[in-house]
């Protein structure tokens, strides 16, 4: 067993080092340090992790308070169809919340507690700089509010980034956790729970940076976007604006067409070009190209390595939202 795993360990040494730079677990002492952080965060953020119940739709999700006057961040599908929502604290105390705005494409929404008070709240952090291997802590009212227990704490790490503003962790989630907070080891909110796949390592969260970008619009009560569990159909998906073709024996993605006014057109990509490298990673086929793009966001600049007329050229492309191009 050990022997078989050893080569894998050696092969991944460069990655290991980058992980270690963040939060190493080289020995028991490192794990103990990790534990003390997780325990401290859990106790601190628990009072700000609320359940959101809609009497109208009969749904039950979670949310997290981010300001003393009771602004709550949650997932858009939690407040879907509701104008007001019951905000329930871990100790059962319940107050009324007003649904503000939502961006369904990013599964983000805001709720404001209507009662006056000084509410427990958590601070927001950053999500864009998260990477596979970063430790995170998840809370949420799993399976709905349960008066007999506090919202369960789960510990894990980022497994994969994307699509777009989303990220995937191995903090196991279940129905009712939706809208609940994901924290980094400083106790800052880095994402909000959104969906799960079958694998225990497939728990998806919408990044806090997306909230920051859409903050004012949501606060003002604006609702937009569409909920899509298919990342490639998501209106926020970053695109180059090309049609792709594949040919046996050709490594890379053949540009079959270029959409007018697209980022690819602006950068000078032409029909017949073969995209072989994106940001230093080799691209073997269209699927891989989409996979890499899904980890970027609209507004990001990517570097394309393109084969044209037996020569290699490099181009910089600033990505746009799918909806900017195809609507």
């Amino acid at each position, binding site marked *: *067993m050990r022997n078989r795993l050893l080569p*894998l*360990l050696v092969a*991944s*040494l460069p*990655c*290991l080092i980058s*992980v270690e730079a963040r939060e190493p*677990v*080289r020995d*028991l002492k490192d*794990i103990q340090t990790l*534990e003390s952080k*997780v*325990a401290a965060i*859990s*106790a601190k953020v628990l009072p700000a992790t609320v359940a959101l119940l809609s009497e109208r739709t*009969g*749904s*039950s*999700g979670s949310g997290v308070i981010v300001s003393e006057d009771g602004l709550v961040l949650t*997932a858009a*599908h939690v407040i879907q169809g509701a104008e007001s929502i019951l905000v329930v604290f871990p100790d*059962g*105390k*319940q*107050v009324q919340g007003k649904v503000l705005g939502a961006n369904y494409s990013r599964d983000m929404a805001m709720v404001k507690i209507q009662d006056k008070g000084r509410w427990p709240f958590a601070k927001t952090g950053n999500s864009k700089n998260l990477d*596979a*291997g970063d430790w995170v802590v998840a809370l949420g009212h*799993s399976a709905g509010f349960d008066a*007999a*227990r*506090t919202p*369960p*704490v*789960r510990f*894990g790490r980022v*497994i994969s980034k994307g*699509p777009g503003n989303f990220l995937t962790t191995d903090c*196991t*989630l*279940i*129905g*009712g*956790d*939706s809208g609940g907070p994901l924290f980094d080891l400083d106790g800052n909110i880095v994402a909000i729970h959104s969906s*799960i*796949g*079958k*694998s225990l*390592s*497939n728990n*998806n969260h919408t990044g806090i940076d997306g909230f920051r970008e859409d903050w004012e619009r949501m606060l003002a009560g604006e609702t937009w976007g569409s*909920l899509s*569990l*298919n*990342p490639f159909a998501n209106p926020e998906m970053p695109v180059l604006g090309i049609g792709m073709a594949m040919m046996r024996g050709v490594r890379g993605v053949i540009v079959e067409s270029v959409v007018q006014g697209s980022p690819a057109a602006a950068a000078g990509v032409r029909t017949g070009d073969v995209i072989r490298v994106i940001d230093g990673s080799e691209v073997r086929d269209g*699927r891989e190209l989409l996979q*890499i793009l899904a*980890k970027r966001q609209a507004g990001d600049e990517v570097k394309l390595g393109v084969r044209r007329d037996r020569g290699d050229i490099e181009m910089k492309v600033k990505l746009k939202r799918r909806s900017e191009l195809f609507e």
Partner: protein
Amino acid sequence: MNKSILTVFGLLLLHGVTTADDDIPLLRPEERRAVEAQTEEFQRSIAPVLKEAANSAVRVWSGKRRLAYGTVIGDGKKILTKWSEVAGAGPDLVVEGAGGEAMPAVIAGVYEDNDLAILETNGTALTPVRWSKVVPPLGTFLAAPQPNGRLAAFGVVSVPERNLRETDSAFLGVIGSMDFDGPGVRIESIAPDSGAAAAGLRPGQIILKVGDRAISGLLELRNSLVGRAPGSRVNVRVKTGADENDVEVLLGNRPDLPSYPGDRLSTMERMGGPISKVRDSFTSAIQSDMRPRPEQIGGPVVDLKGRVIGITLARSDRTRSFIMPAAAVEKLLLTAPRDPALAKVRQEDEMAALPVRRAAMPNRVPDGGGAERLRQHLSEMQRLMEFMREEMENLEPER
């Protein structure tokens, strides 16, 4: 596509969950490598705390079938294990110790309430476990060893110790009105023979306080009873018209009402692998996010100092496992177990007894024949490899 959103609906929704692809669609090779290396590093670093407890962990077999783990207690010839997993075993029940020695065993006693059984062996004495009195707080790291000293499961304290048996919780006997906005709870009806009935509470009255605590609504009313014992008395501030007065109520036991998780939630509970047959209603349980497999239940659980803080009771669902704290185990062991000939296995819910429904076909739009088929094959192979990797990780020697 292959995901499921996480709100819980009170209604039974029969659609909306597809559990087709279980791979992570955007996982890049470099991400997979980083995470795998980290897992390996973590398992190596935590190994020292497992060592002592692993000596008291055993595997329980029925012939060639792995049933459960067990924890060595008493004189080293008694094993505590999970009753529902060993109940159906024949005369070929075998206990395998940390050193690989196999000993025939018989079921000597059963604690039905917590789904535990005591096995007795007549072989050499194994190392009995040393229980710790430590009560691990929220967020504490917990680890369950395999008998060979490797890590079986890791998790944190998700929820500190509590009693999961509904009938042990205090019951007021008030059914609140759903269409009352508060503050307080308007009484819709009173449960017959309840403390509320005996105290003379009536429909239409508004409950403002329980003890010293102001009640904002139904959920807080329920929460205000947590930590109060059936049989104890509590003052309830009641408003009748414009009058307010205190009424003393003798709390009863919550009646045993079956609850169904709903089809949608029930599907999610099973997303991520097999779960224990008996997985709820334990009288003393720490909730953890650790992920032992059902046949790894019954062994010791340690903290980062290697202290045995309890034993695993069940893998309950995708997000939960339950651990019985050491103090509760010790207390239980002072009571007389039931004769296994008379003991029953709890039938928890009919849902669990049913075969898991086949997942809906992926609702993917077919696009481009051959390429799509190839993509599908690749994704299936990836899934297979994932499965094999998991199996390898949990690899335990065949006997």
